């Protein structure tokens, strides 16, 4: 039984001696290793190996944890029809990493006690409109510094903006500076930018 870790392009070295590469149709390269267990440590190890692959390859499409196949022949048969599409996706993420940005409110909203019903509704509308404008302005800024984006729509009100950006490796510092500049101009927001990560959000169908 083998486990799929990622599809790669321009791999310089394998980060672990347990891993090996399998070349599929369209010269697509998969990285596989012996199937492990389903414990927390196995999930962490999977994540760390994918991250290490991202650092030693030009492009990587991470596989979800638990993609297991009986043997190499079974892997080849399972992805045979998608090799061309996966190569195309590798080209899209080539030279890029994923950065995540989450934005919330740093300060509590102005109190609404003592307001009448209409004033309360107007205050809530102002707050929600301001939140949406802040999130939109940040996203517009960061979209210009990235190749692609995946935005998680806010279901309710805890996060104002939750998105992943596909950023070229040599533009990561510029991206981080943009986030920092935006954050210092908006002390009313709390914000975190993490990465660089393997571009997992850009690996699957969207």
């Amino acid at each position: 039984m083998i486990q799929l870790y990622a599809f790669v392009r321009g791999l310089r070295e394998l980060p672990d001696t347990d891993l090996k590469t399998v070349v599929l149709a369209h010269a697509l390269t998969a990285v596989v290793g012996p199937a492990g267990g389903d414990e927390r440590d196995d999930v962490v190890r999977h994540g760390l190996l994918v991250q290490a692959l991202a650092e030693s390859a030009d492009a990587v499409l991470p596989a979800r944890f638990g993609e297991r196949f009986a043997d190499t022949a079974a892997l080849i048969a399972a992805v045979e029809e998608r090799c061309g599409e996966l190569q195309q996706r590798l080209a899209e993420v080539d030279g890029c990493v994923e950065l995540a940005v989450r934005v919330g409110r740093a300060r509590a909203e102005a109190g609404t006690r003592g307001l009448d019903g209409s004033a309360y509704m107007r205050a809530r509308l102002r707050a929600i409109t301001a939140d949406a404008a802040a999130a939109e302005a940040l996203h517009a800024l960061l979209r210009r510094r990235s190749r692609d984006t995946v935005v998680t729509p806010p279901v309710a009100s805890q996060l104002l903006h939750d998105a992943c950006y596909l950023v070229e490796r040599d533009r990561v510092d510029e991206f981080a500076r943009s986030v920092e500049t935006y954050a210092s101009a908006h002390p009313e927001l709390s914000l975190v930018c993490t990465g660089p990560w393997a571009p997992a959000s850009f690996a699957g169908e969207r």
Partner: protein
Amino acid sequence: MTRVLTAQGEVVAGPRALPRRVSADPETVERGLAQLVLTLVELLRQLMERQALHRMERGTLTDEEVERLGETFMKLAERMDELKAEFGLRDEDLNLDLGPLGSLL
């Protein structure tokens, strides 16, 4: 492993969200159930409020309706604050971990 490139303030990300199982320990089951019920009430409150605000923005509510809805939402928010205090819950406790889908709120 988190690599933070830049950060400001504290971003709520849901790590304190309600676990997928409510503890059956008699001492904590009441608080766990209250947390679950209040989470669902909070979700409904937020969804209804958003819907009302959208209707208000589109001008499809009369002044009287806006006033009445505003008072209702305000009272509901105040009552939620009281219930949270009663069960020792904070805003970030009212959430559900939906696994790969993220958190509910």
